[in-house]
């Protein structure tokens, strides 16, 4: 299953707040 990663952290925070859903934040060095 492909994960649709949000790359804009602030947008992700806003979206989590608006939707009431938790946010998974992955800090990585892997190729993106």
């Amino acid at each position, binding site marked *: 299953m492909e*994960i*649709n*990663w*949000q*790359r*804009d*952290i602030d947008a*992700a*925070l806003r*979206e*989590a*707040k608006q*939707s*009431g*859903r*938790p*946010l*998974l*934040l*992955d*800090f*990585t*060095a*892997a190729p*993106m």
Partner: protein
Amino acid sequence: MPARAHVKEQADAFERFGAQWTPTVLLLDADGTERHRFEGYLPVPDFLAQLKLGLAHAAKARGDWTDAERRYREVSNEPSAAEPAAEALYWAGVSKYKASGDPAALASTAQAFQTRFTDSSWAKKASVWSG
């Protein structure tokens, strides 16, 4: 909702959230408060168990003790992820106690640690609830 920051492209995000190593994974609740963090590579079963543990911590933080206990119990029964399972067993007992006010919930948790995760720090923490 998944979001990702790359060490070479978003160093400011690393600084902002105190991420000092990769991979670092944070579980934030909807208002942006960090509820769980783990660092370093994990095999898939352990990774998923850590995510579930984070969601259980978020339920605990909301004071939703019934949901928290259910989530912790699920993680505590993960056969291939002993470290988060031991922590989850501890917090499942706490959640049951917080929901019921019955200290027997803690005593039964201490008893469970006598046969499961016996060498874990969580077993030591729960030992004070015995007898």
